[in-house]
């Protein structure tokens, strides 16, 4: 086993373990931190595959920005993860069975039988001055310009959606302000009206039947 292989297995093991921990720990903050670890080890794997730019971007964007923001949200909201995970143990056996079955099938296909070195040769190592960034940038802005713009549109729609769903705009006129001067000048006739009424016994209203949902 070469040193490279050793590093690969270490990083891969960390990624898998931290992924498992992320979905099993009870505390949401801890889960987020495990996710950060999973990202970091994945970034390491990418760098080993000579995709340095992507690896760095993963750390900068996901770990540096997205996850920090996410942690803020998690810490500010008081989410009780224990309740969300109710039923977890109940479905664990069958879920695990399905997971194992799918893993077995995936291993059959994605494993060395079809993607081994004899099938697809390992790419030659790139020279030291090889620029990952240029290699990504040129097709991104030429060949895939259309897709690039579409991705921008997708983000725009995401922004619109997020704002539309979270912005709580009060309709004008429903917001009440206190007008002290007006309050002081008010008179009895403006507020009070005497009405003569017969005594009415109110019938309890029949409860509306809840509509069947399922």
């Amino acid at each position, binding site marked *: 086993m070469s040193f490279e292989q050793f590093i690969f297995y270490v990083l891969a093991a960390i990624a898998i373990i931290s992924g498992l921990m992320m979905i099993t720990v009870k505390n949401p903050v801890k889960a987020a931190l495990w996710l950060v670890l999973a990202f970091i080890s994945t970034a390491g794997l990418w760098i080993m595959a000579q995709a340095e730019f992507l690896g760095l971007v993963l750390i900068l964007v996901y770990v540096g920005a997205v996850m920090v923001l996410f942690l803020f949200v998690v810490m500010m909201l008081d989410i009780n993860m224990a309740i969300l995970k109710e039923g977890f143990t109940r479905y664990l056996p069958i879920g695990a069975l399905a997971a194992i079955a799918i893993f077995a099938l995936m291993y059959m*296909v994605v494993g060395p039988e079809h993607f081994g070195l004899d099938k697809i040769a390992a790419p030659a190592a790139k020279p030291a001055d090889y620029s990952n960034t240029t290699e990504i940038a040129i097709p991104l802005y030429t060949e895939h310009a259309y897709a690039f713009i579409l991705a921008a*549109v*997708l983000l725009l*729609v995401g922004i619109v*959606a997020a704002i539309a769903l979270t912005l709580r705009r009060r309709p004008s006129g429903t917001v009440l302000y206190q007008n002290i001067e007006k309050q002081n000048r008010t008179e009895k006739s403006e507020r009070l009206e005497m009405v003569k009424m017969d005594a009415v016994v109110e019938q309890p209203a029949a409860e509306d039947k809840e509509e069947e949902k399922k």
Partner: protein
Amino acid sequence: MNFVIPSFAPAIPEITLLILASLILVADTFWSKRFQNATYYATQASLLVAGYLVLSSFSVEQVFTFNDSFVRDSFADVLKLFTVAITLGIFLFAREYLVQHRFMSGEFFVLGLFGVLGMFVMISANNFITMYLGLEIMSLAMYAMIALRKYDGVAVEAGMKYFVLGALATGMLLYGFSMIYGATGTITFPEMKAVIASGEADGIVLAFGVVFVVIGLAFKMGAVPFHMWMPDVYHGSPTAVTLYLGTAPKLAGFAMVYRLLYEAMPGLVGDWQQLIIIISILSMVIGSIVAIAQDNLKRMLAYSGIGHVGFLLLGVIAATDDGFSAAMFFIIVYAITGVAGFGMITALSRTGFEFDRVADFKGLNAKNPWLALMMLIVMFSMAGIPPFVGFWAKIVVIEEVVKAGFTWIAVIAVITAVISAFYYLRVVKSMYFDKSEIQGPVEIISPALHWGVSFVAILLLALGLLPGSLIDLCYLSI
């Protein structure tokens, strides 16, 4: 590095639509306070412009641009035109509903317009990336539209469910894409077809990828067993949004099926055909049987939509040009019928009253015979009773699947069609033979919607009497 600037001309409708949508997005923030309907009219105008641009540059040849990531052909143009026409109808019905239910907002129309842009992109996609991006633009717009009434718990729940399950399905779709890319080494459809045809790609990996792709497609179309979101989402969404969800995206979804399975992977027909057969039969059976037990019309129509997807897939099973043409005719007819059906509920709904239970339609004939007649046409068309166009839609796909040698599937299809006739006729029976439970008159508030509903319903009859031109259009465009 030699780079030639690609021709923008084929994509003019998309470009214009994007510009107009962005302008409306910005303008809406300024004018929404003063002019309540400005965004609505601007949206409809943009759709008309986009439709006109498609029509004026109608393309009979296949034209590629943007380094083969965009394709323009008559298939795309026909579907885009119907998308525009159907969306025009949707917005027409939706506006009154939004006003009645107090959540009239420009975002609905802007998101709807972006959704249409996503559909356009999907219809014209020529590689995995653009297909995926178009799908996401459309889906994201729809997620947001469902939950737009943010104080309505049911709607938010529906949006959430759709979002999470949609993410799962998209994940599978992307996984499938990456497998196929791994096996073929290309993302553009024509090249992929060539590589698969050459037999150099690894068959097992391709088959593996195809499973994931088919699942992604099945989820988007709402086919069993990836249909579970549909009843909840259709039911939970405000009816105006259900109207949107249940019609126009189906056309784009069909385009996705066509591009991926038939343009990119005809060589893998042995793999996907079997999967589609299973999905199709399950959809027809589950769709027709479970709908019987529904009391809510939107939910019933969701199951009916599942059953219809099963029928649509009959044309896909045939895996021929004619089969896809039949499916195209079917899906166009279904979208029009959907506009009529959901449009009827949308139009009848009033402030504080959704009018979406089957029981609400009881005794409609006594209160409003004209509307009852229109609803009868819609139900009969959905059930596939001649002379309404739904009959032709069913018969062409069944004919194609029989031609392809799958007579037994056709037999199942016909049996499920008979079963499904039960619940359509139950609505008719409620309208004509039961006593109304509603006090006061039942009518559509806005006369424009009254005529709109009547127009679409009568269109179903007219197309049923003269189906030739639409069928020919579909057969010529593939």
